């Protein structure tokens, strides 16, 4: 048309583009081949350096060529003088910057940069930081960049304070920046370490000065109110609530002469090396013992540890010492050790000042909840805070939170149900422990989906877990003194190996569960002590003839109920 600019049609455009592409591909392949050929020939010289440059400028992710390039550089360095060396490094850094512009998220490029900076006789870390700043401004979650930043900080003398400010700037410009919050959580303990450092080495919030922690609470509250749907802020807040370090304590010390076994029960899973601090004395003499974990894979931390003790008379005086405390042998008439709620409750390192903050924080969250009743994070946090502050009086509200959570976040229903189980057990334990006779423990009808703090039950003789929602026997391995175990009305599908640890078990009731296969039942034969078993109301009975089963378990009283096999 008259007066218009003539433009290629889209077919012509496509054809032209295709031609271009083919040319490019040919060139690329040519260069690659040449690089390999030269390397084979061993000519690691400037020319090869140039070739690798061209290729890497097109494609910074070709790792082999980066390696070749490093070889070449090392080779060149061997025969160049100091000035040439610095020149080389400068050029390399410049080239790397260009590569980064092409793809700021390339492993190869950053790796090379790290290598160069590590070997650079004259590194300029400020420049590196500025580079990180630049790329983080393009994409504030570029984890390559964050890692490289940490690397640079580690090598240079930039103070953590400056980095803390940097993280603050990043958070202020975008509070969704999880990377920045995370970075902050690493920097805070470095900038403001708490005066009394507990033996635990991990840099968690308990190792930060309290007033700084409280300031952080303020910031994070602002963030939470500004956007309650953003996870980063909630996770940071969780971190602030912290994980207090629980001191390891020995709860029970038991002896099973018939099994030739000594048993130690700790208040939390411990590693084997802690056992070196335990001394068992027989009539005043220290025994050399080999401890093994009870009920867990051998290399994992475990709460229960056993050792073999051969042919010892029950009248002999056995004593156990751990960290300047002596523990007598457990017998059922002895009271339970006094246990602090903090040892089993959610581990929040609470001091007087902080508990005040937690109260106000809890109120703030509840206020937020009134505006945002659907927000699962609010419910979860309010729940956790109430649990930490005063679980008994807030029990009803906490249960409300649990229901709300299951409704708002149905994908994680199981998680919340497990959490609820934990809560119920935790609130149940103190009252249980106050009894003089804690040989009986009744945890029936609580809807428990999972068992927690089971090591406290290791001293229980009769345990009633009926009418819950247990799907497996996890945690039951610690019930070493249990004689009667009631698992009626649960959702068990099989008998697991954990049951074998119940060396004193005499009566086991598995009524109205979901057991189908007899194989697992056969495990029970291995327990010598068991002499009464109830499998009434299980699907297995529909399939198998009860008479067969009775034959199987001939040495014990089998109760199959009145159900007739169809």
């Amino acid at each position, binding site marked *: 048309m*008259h007066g218009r600019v003539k*433009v290629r049609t889209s077919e012509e455009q496509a054809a032209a583009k295709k031609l271009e592409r083919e040319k490019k591909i040919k060139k690329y392949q040519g260069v690659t081949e040449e690089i390999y050929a030269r390397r084979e020939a061993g000519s690691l010289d400037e020319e090869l350096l140039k070739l690798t440059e061209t290729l890497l400028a097109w494609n910074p992710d070709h790792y082999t060529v980066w390696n070749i390039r490093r070889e070449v550089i090392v080779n060149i360095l061997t025969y160049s003088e100091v000035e040439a060396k610095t020149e080389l490094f400068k050029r390399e850094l410049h080239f790397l910057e260009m590569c980064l512009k092409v793809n700021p998220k390339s492993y190869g490029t950053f790796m090379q940069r790290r290598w160069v900076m590590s070997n650079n006789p004259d590194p300029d870390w400020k420049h590196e930081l500025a580079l990180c700043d630049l790329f983080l*401004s393009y994409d504030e979650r570029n984890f390559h960049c964050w890692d490289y930043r940490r690397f640079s900080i580690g090598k240079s003398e930039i103070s953590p304070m400056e980095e803390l400010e940097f993280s603050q700037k990043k958070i202020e410009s975008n509070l969704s920046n999880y990377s920045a919050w995370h970075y902050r959580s690493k920097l805070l303990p470095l900038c403001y370490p708490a005066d009394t450092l507990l033996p635990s080495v991990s840099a968690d919030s308990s190792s930060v000065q309290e007033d700084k922690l409280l300031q952080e609470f303020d910031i994070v509250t602002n963030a939470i*109110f*500004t956007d309650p749907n953003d996870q980063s802020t909630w996770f940071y807040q969780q971190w602030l609530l912290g994980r207090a370090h629980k001191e390891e304590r020995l709860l029970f010390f038991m002896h099973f002469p018939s099994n030739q076994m000594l048993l130690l029960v700790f208040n939390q899973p411990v590693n084997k090396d802690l056992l070196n601090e335990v001394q068992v004395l027989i009539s005043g003499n220290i025994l050399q013992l080999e401890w093994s974990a009870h009920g867990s894979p051998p290399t994992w931390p475990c709460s229960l540890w056993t050792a073999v003790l051969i042919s010892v008379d029950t009248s002999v005086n056995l004593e156990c010492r751990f960290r300047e405390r002596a523990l007598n042998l457990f017998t059922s008439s002895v009271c339970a050790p006094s246990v602090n709620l903090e040892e089993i409750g959610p581990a929040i390192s609470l001091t007087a000042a902080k508990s005040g903050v937690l109260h106000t924080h809890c109120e703030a969250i509840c206020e*937020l909840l009134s505006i945002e009743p659907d927000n699962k994070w609010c419910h979860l946090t309010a729940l956790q805070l109430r649990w930490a502050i005063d679980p008994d009086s807030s029990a009803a509200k906490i249960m409300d939170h649990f229901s709300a959570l299951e409704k708002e976040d149905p994908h994680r229903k199981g998680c919340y149900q497990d959490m609820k189980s934990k809560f119920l057990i935790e609130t149940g334990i103190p009252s249980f422990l106050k009894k003089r006779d804690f040989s009986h423990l009744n945890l029936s009808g609580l809807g428990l989906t999972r068992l927690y703090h089971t090591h406290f039950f290791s001293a229980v003789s009769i345990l009633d877990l009926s009418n819950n929602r247990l799907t497996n026997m996890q945690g039951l391995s610690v019930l070493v003194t249990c004689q009667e175990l009631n698992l009626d009305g649960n959702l068990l599908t099989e008998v697991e190996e954990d049951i074998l640890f119940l060396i004193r078990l005499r009566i086991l009731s598995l009524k109205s569960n979901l057991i189908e296969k007899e194989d697992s039942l056969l495990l029970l034969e291995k327990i010598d002590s068991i002499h009464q078993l109830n499998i009434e109301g299980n699907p297995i009975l529909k399939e198998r003839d009860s008479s067969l089963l009775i034959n199987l378990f001939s040495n014990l009283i089998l109760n199959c109920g009145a159900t007739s096999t169809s």
Partner: protein
Amino acid sequence: MAYVSSDELPKNFDVIVYGTGLTESIIAAALCRNGVSVLHLDYNQFYGGECASLMYREFIEFLKATPRTPQTQDNNVQSTEDQSSNSQRYFLRSDLSRIYENIEQDFVEQSSPLLPEVTPVTTNVTPNITSTDCANNYSLATDTDTKVTSHEETSQSIHHNSDSTEVNEDNLSPAPVTTFDTPTSTQESTQPTQKDNKSSLQESQPTLQDSQSTLQESQSTLQESQPTLQESQPTLQDGQPTLQDGQPTLQDSQSILQDSQSTLQESQPTLQDTQSTLQDNQSTQDKETQLLTPSSHTKISTPSTDPVLSWTELKSQHRMFTFDLWPKLIYATDPFVDMIVKSSVTKYLEFKAVNKIITVLDGNLTLVPASRADVFTSKTVSVLEKRLLMRFVTFVMDLDEHTEEVEKYNARPFSEFMEHMRLNAKLRALIKSSIAQVEDDSLTEVALERSKFYLQSIGRYSNSPYLWPVYGIGELPQAFCRMAAVFGGLYMLRKEIRYLEIIETEGVSKCHSVRDTENTTFLCKHIILGVSLVPDPQPTIRYSRAILATNRKLLPPNTSDINSDIGFITIPSHTLGPNQSYTIKIIELSPKSQSCPDRCYLVHITCCSSQNTAKADLLPVVEFLFNNSTDNTDIPPAPKVLYSIYFNYNSTQAPTGNKSKLADNIHLISSPDLEPSYQQILSEAKGVFDTICPGDTFLPPPPDPEDIIYEPTPPEQNQIDIVESAGDSLQPTGTQSDNETEQIEK
């Protein structure tokens, strides 16, 4: 048509556009881009018309509608019958004095604290002195002969009366004999007086204004890249001797169109500056709002160390001022922005973000938080208020999801809806005045649309929803004119059309040609002109405007310095009293926006008129914001006004459909309005374009230079011919060369 020599101009065009206002320029660009031959004229010596950004002298002249060329016809509207019975002449208005009214200027004397005090000297400024007597013709207030500044505030409010053209009461109104400096505008006149006395009538030479505006142009072209495709560019015709600017791009033979390929990336380099300045701004702004109380204290500058701009300095830098006739912020998600990005007009423009947004709450200036980051770091809002505000923000951003909830409130007052959202009084005021920017009685539907417009604009280019072109709004029409010229438009400034010739054939009237003041006739198939040029009365919207030069930026109390280039302040209605019927909007430009010299700020104040004069409407707000002297040395003193001008602006509105009653091919364009969006401008431009070129694409993106097919052109066309500015060089209309306007096959 072949351009054979430089003194023959083409006379036949498809479309004549008269007036280089923004809408007209957009249409011109769209038409040229579409291959239509366009003649674009303007009676002024500058581009932009009522949207222009002008130097001081031009500005005042334009406001007062000083006659430019001697009139050969009287000002009365006539339509005389010609010899041929079916043609009539439709004379356009040449007296445009009623567009701007009630002009009042104040020259406020401000002493520099560093200079010694002296006894006040009577200045030469008294009424009735004609400018030829006065040593300083256009320099401001006190004469520069005595280097002494007086403490007195000599304020002169002189009313401009369009009827009395006899007495130049105002020192600044130029004499009938205009005096100009030589065109080296970079020269800081150390003795402005002498130069001014040169009464060199150089109307046909590049005038001061010309070179000033072209200096601005060439400054702005530093960022531009002209798409020149071949060395021969005979189509770049400009009424001004633009080559003398030394615009390097005209000589440039590189094809720079490839820059325009990804248009968003194109605008990014210019906007990345603003982004980076914005991040700086953000960080420094946040420094004062950060939650961990910083160790930095607010800097209080005591008067003795205060580098306040003195009046003398201000005068000497008057050339650094750019006055916008029409200061209208651009929302980042305005379809106008999409249009300029898509068509890559952005390569002629550079923008700044307006990153200081303030309103008045409880009688005090307050920063307005709207983006999530602002809200997070704000200290003026409690956590609960933050939550409620963010709730509102997210609600409005997803307005489409909430149609049922909103339906019931659509026809109800907005305040009811805000109460429904549980917003307290403070937040309601904030939202109404700054986010929705509506009056008290506004209905929910409108207010929500506006809120959505505002909120969605945040984050597109910066943390602020607004953009402002560097060098002023006047850059916008210039950018479109540039594009039009590149695609073959012919430009002539200082060309005035006297009348349109309308011929009736078979019952249909059509404008056949136009005649200018030098008696040249141009033929056209369509004519587009601003409706303010048409003699018939049209509906107008009346605005009150004020422009102030101040010496310090406005800050909310107890705020340390905010690093901002441009600020936007809303004063909700009735804040200053029962007489304030409308919201007052204020734009504060800093030196970084290239509209004023260092240490000075240019403040534009606008509102819909309710009182008789602009000064009556706006003086209360000026007194509220400025010149409050207090003895309290703890807070930084309020900015002082160094210069102010008030005027009313009557913005004429074209009839719907933009058609004139006289003929179908006369298209009338509304004057620009001061509503929030550019929607009216865009829809008028598109409407007129669709009428002239139905079915064609409006300003499509330019093609990838690699895809352009070049055809060899005959050798005799490979010349660059520059057409001199109109005026005297036109031949009489005897010669009519061939009637085709040929475009270059690119």
